[in-house]
């Protein structure tokens, strides 16, 4: 379907179209800036994530080893029983934060379980290692969610920029050109008509 269908080839409409085009071009520039910022943010986030993830994986392996040792030394029922003596669990507050207009959840530890004086030394070692890494896991989850949402927003922004650059702006330009051509044509017709009338009047005067 032609983009010029239903277009009124008037000067007023041409001015309106030009105004809209300039507004869209400015918006497109802003979106490109946002896209570049988000891409930069995502690259940094991915680098950090890779580093943190491997560190946490290493620590989790150590924790798993400590837990296996506790189970082998104390027996499954005893480990469960001792673990049950921990009264409180982690209390976490989740708040929304924003980067470049992209919202992501931010986690804050409100209270931690108290494990001192409650567990056998074998299990205490595993539990304290787990508690050390738990907050890092929360930070990692927060960071992953942030990276995921930034990547999502980057995709959306990219699609918007592409749509504006390849579809919206060219179609506006086409409409403007069509109107301009029409107006030029009308101007030329008017000129010819004026000249013809001028010639007729001149001949009548002779």
């Amino acid at each position, binding site marked *: 379907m032609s983009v010029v269908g239903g277009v009124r080839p008037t000067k007023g409409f041409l001015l309106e179209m030009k105004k809209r085009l300039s507004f869209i071009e400015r918006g497109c520039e802003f979106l490109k800036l946002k896209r570049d910022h988000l891409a930069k943010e995502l690259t940094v986030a991915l680098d950090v994530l890779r580093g943190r993830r491997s560190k946490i994986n290493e620590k989790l392996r150590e924790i798993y080893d400590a837990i296996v040792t506790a189970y082998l*030394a104390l027996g499954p029922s005893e480990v469960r029983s001792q673990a049950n003596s921990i009264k409180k669990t982690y209390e976490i507050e989740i708040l929304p934060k924003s980067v470049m207009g992209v919202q992501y959840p931010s986690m804050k530890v409100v209270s931690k379980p108290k494990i001192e004086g409650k567990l056998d030394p074998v299990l205490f070692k595993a539990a304290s290692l787990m508690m050390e890494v738990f907050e890092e896991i929360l930070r990692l989850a927060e960071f992953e969610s942030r990276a995921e949402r930034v990547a999502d927003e980057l995709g959306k922004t990219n699609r918007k920029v592409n749509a504006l650059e390849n579809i919206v702006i060219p179609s506006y330009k086409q409409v403007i050109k069509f109107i301009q051509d029409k107006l030029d044509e009308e101007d030329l017709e008017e000129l010819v008509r004026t000249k013809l009338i001028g010639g007729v009047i001149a001949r009548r005067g002779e």
Partner: protein
Amino acid sequence: MRAELLDSNTLRNLAEARDFKEFLEILSKTPYGEELANAEIDVLELEQILNKKFLERLNKIIISSPKEISEFIKDYYIMGLEIKNLKRILRGKFSGMPSEWIARSLIPMRPYLSVNFEELLETKTLEEFVEALKETAYATLSESLRICVEHEVLWPMETRLNGLHVDRIEVSLMNLSPEDRVIVKRVLQTRMDIENLLAADKWGKEFGRQTPPRGYFYRIYGVPLEVLESLIKTGDLEEIIKSLGTPYYQILKPLLEDDVALVRRYLQRYIYEVLRKSKTRSDFAFPAIFFLLTSFENEIENLASIAWGKEQGVPPKKILKYILLPS
């Protein structure tokens, strides 16, 4: 009954089984096979079966032993199992767990029921729990209640329970012959000393080298209080355990690498060897019975650990590191 003990090859085969299913297949060909017949069980159920089997064996020996030995066995093993159950109920009550959950973790104690576990399971608070034990051997537990409630910790009550057990064993061993008494004292002393040293090391690490409250060490044996306090204050583990000499240094050496589980395994090995060497007399004499029961106790603990390891896919090398293979 000695023939019922699993040899080290069988234990090794169990530890090297491909998975929990193969573990059960191997175990079903041992004296535990009867209990496992046609049973689709998980690790926790297996642990209950093993505990039941241990209690059956204890019962057989109690019935057939002279009075002083059977009384000692009741105080040493039956009370030990009872205290394990009390600690499990205590922990559950402390964290507000539903009674049914706690009940599932309890070791079956029939026919030895000196406390009413059902009544204890119905209690709602620590105060009610202590009140329910008023007419039993654990009446003095109420003395540790205040500190537990004030500081939201359980160790005062758990230490008191351990202490009551030691007190009872000490009374009971007075009825044994002087030679038998020496064996039990040696086992008891080594166990208590090692546990005190582990507790001192733990306290120092957990509470930043602060002095623990009075009563933290319920009973002091061969390792004096000054040594334990010095370990808490300085944390100089290597120096202190070196100064203690044999057998403490050999048992506690893995603690230098923070491997408490291996310390326990070395302690178990040490006690096993002490009892093995002392059972020179007939199979019906006390040392032989004590050795047999300790071997059965080690065996069920080992089997529960191997079973869990197999269910979780733990490598055999790691399992074998923490279990005691009989010699």
